[in-house]
């Protein structure tokens, strides 16, 4: 029974030592004039997309540093947590941030599954959440809360509506889609199948899905070759993209098909290298070499702080924190006032000119089309011998035209009740 008595003694000791916790309940929140602004960031710092997660943390920390660590008289308290890319961990960390740390704002995410989990907690707790990864579901029922949910990353359909004219006009009129078999891929497929036929004479001639975590794309080669397509659109990210491009290159497919990557990120590019990137095209919501004052300010600061240009994911966090700062300086203290500030907001930040439309809190920001370069073109066309993997060939400004109209959104909300 010794263990038991030790246990009891320990419990009593801890009981007297600590107050708080589940039993004690939290302290008082609420923003006074010099009360700190607490911003919680939840992102994937372990798991398959570590680099994107680390970049989000960098973007957030950079923004806080540039603001001098405070907004007006209120110091900023930035709390970054790892969601391991797992929804249950995201839920737990979100609850910890809300209950334990009493955060005023939540932001960050690199996968749809975790963003929806965090949003769930945020909406229950009445904390504004600024989503930063590409999904159609965040600002749609049952997830969207008009008082609290915001989305800074483009939805897949926005990007695809913007990029499809380029695919059809510049690359070819018959398209084969190779998509990852999860929500992100399904959303892309639906968007392409709607947008491609809208271009004159352009068709989707075939689609194939690959399961999560596929490393072997060999079995897809005959289907792609037999499809007779001119353009091969690939919807996977990260490791999938690296494995895919390596293998289609070995088969010599990149010479015979025009390959278009639905999502580009500098961290993927680094793993691909010029050899594989050369002769492909890609689409992104952010690229470091876009000619825009706001973008370049951010890129310069980021390079100075971290020694390399930023990829596409830190920018959302940088923007989110700057938007929060601007709202507070504007006098917005409560979630209601934040909503008022955000709705219809037109700003030019590190994503370029951006509007946050009122009806679904979706950011309408530019999409860029990129052409892959060879190593010897990097300096002249890519703007940098080391990092100039791609040249920006087209910039499509953020526009209502690429998103579902607000009426369509309204009817969707009404149908869901």
């Amino acid at each position, binding site marked *: 029974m010794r263990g038991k008595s030790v246990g009891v003694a320990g419990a009593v000791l801890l009981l007297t030592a600590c107050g708080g916790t589940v039993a004690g309940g939290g302290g008082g929140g609420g923003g006074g004039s010099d009360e700190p602004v607490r911003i919680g960031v939840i992102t994937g710092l372990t798991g398959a997309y570590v680099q994107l997660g680390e970049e989000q943390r960098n973007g957030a920390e950079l923004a806080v540093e540039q603001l001098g660590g405070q907004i007006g008289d209120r110091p900023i308290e930035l709390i970054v947590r790892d969601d391991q890319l797992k929804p249950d961990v995201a839920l737990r960390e979100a609850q910890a941030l809300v209950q334990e740390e009493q955060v005023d704002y939540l932001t960050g995410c690199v996968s749809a599954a975790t963003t929806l989990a965090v949003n769930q907690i945020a909406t229950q707790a009445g904390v504004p959440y600024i989503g930063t990864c590409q999904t159609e579901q965040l600002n749609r029922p049952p997830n969207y809360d008009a008082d609290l949910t915001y989305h800074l990353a483009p939805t897949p359909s926005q990007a695809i509506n913007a990029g499809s004219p380029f695919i059809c006009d510049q690359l070819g009129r018959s398209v084969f889609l190779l998509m990852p078999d999860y929500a992100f891929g399904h959303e892309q497929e639906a968007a392409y199948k709607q947008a491609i036929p809208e271009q004159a004479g352009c068709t989707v001639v075939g689609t194939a*899905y690959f*399961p999560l975590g*596929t490393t*072997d794309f*060999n*079995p897809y080669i005959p289907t792609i070759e037999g499809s007779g397509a001119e353009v091969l659109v690939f919807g996977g990210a990260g490791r999938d993209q690296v494995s895919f491009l*390596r293998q289609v290159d070995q088969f010599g497919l990149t010479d015979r098909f025009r390959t278009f990557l639905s999502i580009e990120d500098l*961290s993927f590019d680094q793993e691909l290298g010029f050899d594989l990137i050369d002769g492909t095209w890609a689409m992104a919501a952010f690229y470091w070499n876009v000619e825009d004052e706001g973008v370049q300010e951010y890129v310069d600061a980021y390079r100075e702080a971290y020694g390399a240009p930023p990829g596409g994911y830190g920018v959302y966090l940088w923007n989110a924190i700057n938007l929060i700062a601007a709202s507070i300086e504007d006098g917005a203290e409560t979630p209601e006032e934040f909503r008022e500030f955000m709705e219809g907001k037109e700003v030019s930040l590190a994503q370029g000119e951006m509007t946050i439309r009122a009806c679904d809190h979706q950011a309408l920001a530019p999409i860029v089309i990129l052409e892959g370069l060879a190593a010897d073109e990097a300096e002249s066309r890519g703007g940098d011998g080391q990092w100039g993997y791609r040249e920006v060939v087209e910039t499509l400004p953020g526009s209502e035209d690429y998103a579902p109209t607000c009426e369509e959104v309204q009817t969707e909300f009404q149908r869901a009740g």
Partner: protein
Amino acid sequence: MGQLISQIVLGLVSGALLVLLALGLNLIFGLLEFINFSHGALYMVGAYVASYLAVATGSLWPALLVVPVVMALLGAGLERTIIRPMYGRDQVDALLLTFGLTYVLIEGVRMIAGSGGRRVSTPELLRFQVDLGIVRLPAYLLFVVVVVGLVVAGLHLFLRRTDVGLIVRAGIRDHVMIRALGVPFDRYRTLVFALGVAVAGIAGVLTGPITGVYPEMGADILILAFVVVVVGGMGSFWGAVVAGLLIGVVVSLTTLYASVYAGIVPFVLMILVMTFRPRGLLGAT
């Protein structure tokens, strides 16, 4: 019909690498009687060593010779230190130990080499395609198939034709008897573990140019290699070879007709095999 054949050929090619991983796993299981959960992580370590060697020497060729040696040494070291205390204990203990080792290896590599993957280029010599009539294959993949074939043949000869192989095979049958005959059995266990790890290392080297090299690369493929071992029959040499190729072909054909199911088909196949042939396709009954 043409497409069907080319799909089968590609499946066989994909299965070749699985065969290599499954063989190492199976060899270790046969003699040491536990499932080496860290096999995938060791394969990853082999791939990393290769990627650094390739950068240092400017070519993948030296890695193909050096990595198996390095990995065999690493394997022998691991066996002598942390695997050995597991003998005579519950099978589960060794499995869980290697499970923990997997975490250590993956995170260790991440700390040293970073979270991002590393590039390994296809050797200059093999950057072309070969037209086999029905299907055009990258020369590099053909090279992979040849190397896998050589390794399989080499292992087979080693086990069949050498005295050491004889003892190993006898040990797989009945190690109590072997020990009773006065054979220093522990030394053979070290040897077999080192050999299994070396084979995983070769698989790692070969995979580099196909998928790139990254810390989690062993995780998914390890589960598939388990499936291959079980379907082929635990401890069965040719079982692993046949099952590896079979699963490669089955996945490849599923991709053609219903790509969504490609990921789940190996598991369904395993359930079916387990139901009708409990010891696997070529396992001893």
